[in-house]
């Protein structure tokens, strides 16, 4: 058959009655990927996700670069969720180095992680809205995302690609007026969520599009191994912050929302509830940080090594200067596995070191990479117009899946 000869890239024999449609890569409903859909009338009988359009070889490149350089590199998988994606990598390095960040650095990481989580969910909402033809949701979500992007910018100096954590700490301290700003943003967002509910989540048209669409049962979710809000919408109580609390998540008071319906509407509601929880975490983190002013954000032994100029800069601007040793850092040999909960779900890093200046192997499995399987096993049986609804509801982000 031709299909095997061409490695299945394009040509495959299609049965006579089926109508083959290529959704993507230049298609408003696909993002950076292609879904090869075979239709019988209006009903999808087969969907084959053809991903890899944004495969940027992160795993290979991190093998040839020094230990600190993969932080900005890996961040580019999901620049909209940059802190969540780098913290587990840094955790893995810290496990290998037997180093742990001071609590203030941990809190700062959690703060930025939650800001990113809200921004990431809002991004998801925006894309979801535009997939359902609801352009206002797109604009509102992106407009309100700017509030959190602005917060992140004030905290780290960059809108999206923060490169914030470094092994042992973070790169900058919080500005003085940050807590008040964060609190205002939190209060604002709480009010806006109510309006989101009215115009989008409870909008009869949207409810009709989402209810009972793309149902993933509890057992099916476990079988397919999908992650994140999608799995929590199917009644599985799994969240890395619950299973293996990293950073300071075990000191914070928050809930993991779980729904049991498993359809697209439940997945949407999980995100709404998660935004609420993230907002509460932001408030708690900011309160803690205000109570513990002046604590170090890098380990004491590192601080002692800093020259005078570096200390001056740190005290004046809160910016931690790196040492030239960071460029040629060596990490003891070993294997470490670290996981974290991104906005879209669980991310896993498997880092192996042979004691050199570069990692021996970095394996990263992102949430979207694990969610891609949904297209193959959940989409068939739905109508063509359900495809964007399912795509948006699982919040799939191709650059993250392709790495």
């Amino acid at each position, binding site marked *: 058959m031709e299909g095997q000869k*061409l490695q299945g*890239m*394009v040509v495959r024999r299609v049965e006579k009655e089926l109508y083959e449609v290529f959704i993507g*890569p*230049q*298609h*408003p409903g696909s*993002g*950076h990927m292609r879904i090869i859909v075979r239709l019988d009338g209006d009903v999808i009988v087969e969907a084959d996700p053809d991903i*890899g*359009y*944004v*495969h*940027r*070889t992160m795993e*290979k*490149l991190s093998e*040839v670069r020094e230990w600190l350089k993969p932080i*900005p*590199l890996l961040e*580019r*998988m*999901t*620049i*909209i969720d940059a802190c969540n994606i780098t913290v587990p990598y840094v955790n893995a390095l810290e496990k290998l180095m037997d180093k742990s960040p001071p609590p203030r650095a941990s809190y700062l990481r959690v703060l930025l992680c939650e800001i990113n989580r809200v921004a990431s969910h809002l*991004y998801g909402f*925006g*894309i979801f809205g535009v997939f359902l033809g609801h352009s206002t949701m797109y*604009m*509102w979500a*992106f*407009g309100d*995302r*700017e509030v959190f*992007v602005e917060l992140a910018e004030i905290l780290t100096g960059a*809108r*999206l*690609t923060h490169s914030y954590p470094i092994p042992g700490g973070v790169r900058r301290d919080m500005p003085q007026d940050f807590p008040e700003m964060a609190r205002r943003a939190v209060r604002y967002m709480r009010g806006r969520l109510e309006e989101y509910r009215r115009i989008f989540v409870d909008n009869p048209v949207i409810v009709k599009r989402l209810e009972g669409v793309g149902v993933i049962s509890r057992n099916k979710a476990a079988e397919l191994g999908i992650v994140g809000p999608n799995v929590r919408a199917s009644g599985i109580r799994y969240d890395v912050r619950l299973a293996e609390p990293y950073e300071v998540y075990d000191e914070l008071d928050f809930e993991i929302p779980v729904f049991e319906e498993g359809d697209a509407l439940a997945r949407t509601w999980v995100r709404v509830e998660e935004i609420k929880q993230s907002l509460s975490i932001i408030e708690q983190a900011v309160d803690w940080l205000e109570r513990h002013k002046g604590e170090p954000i890098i380990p004491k032994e590192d601080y002692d090594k800093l020259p005078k100029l570096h200390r001056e800069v740190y005290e004046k601007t809160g910016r931690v200067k790196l040492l030239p040793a960071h460029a040629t850092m060596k990490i003891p040999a070993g294997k470490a596995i670290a996981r974290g909960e991104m906005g879209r779900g669980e991310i896993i890093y498997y880092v192996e070191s042979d004691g050199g200046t570069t990692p021996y192997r970095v394996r990263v499995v992102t949430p979207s990479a694990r969610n891609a399987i949904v297209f193959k096993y959940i989409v068939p049986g739905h109508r063509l117009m359900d495809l964007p609804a399912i795509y948006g509801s699982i919040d799939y982000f191709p*650059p993250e899946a392709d790495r």
Partner: protein
Amino acid sequence: MDVKAVDKVYVGNINVAARRARELLLGKLKLGDVIDWATTFSLWPVHLLTSCCGAEFAATWSPRFDAEQYGALPWVAPRQTNFIIIEGTVTRKMACALRITYEQMPHPKFVIAMGACALDGGLFYNSYNIVRPWEVVPVDVYIPGCPPPPEAVARAIIDLRRKIREKKLASRWLIEGWRHDRDPVKPADDVCKWWRP
């Protein structure tokens, strides 16, 4: 002679007549300026997301930056657009899609390369799966940054507008049929080799 008799009906050579009309309208009547002006306020980017700068591309059209104020409306199909923003890395798989999309768009068309990855690979400069977008399509304006902030994208649109008006890119396309000021790009067969082996 431009005119010849066909069955006693005098018919002008249609190509010559068209060229003369074009010269009259664009040259004498300054219609070219109108066309250039119209094109600058009607740059509709095609919906082609090549990579993660798409996040900032989306933010550029968000309420805070709202690039629709320049008349740029992201549109779905390449046939109705005249403008591509290359959002970041172009992988070898995507390069073919980029080229096909570019060729599907009607002239006059413009390209902005956004982000370090779209210029010289950025972080991925030595990756095995990356192509430089300027080898695939001719680029008008380059935006540095990773990702460039939305203001930079807006600045690029404004810069492109200035370039179109100054060099009369849109009306010259009508007169000449193609643009001369662009660097050559790879032939389509090279870009899409993997597609049709």
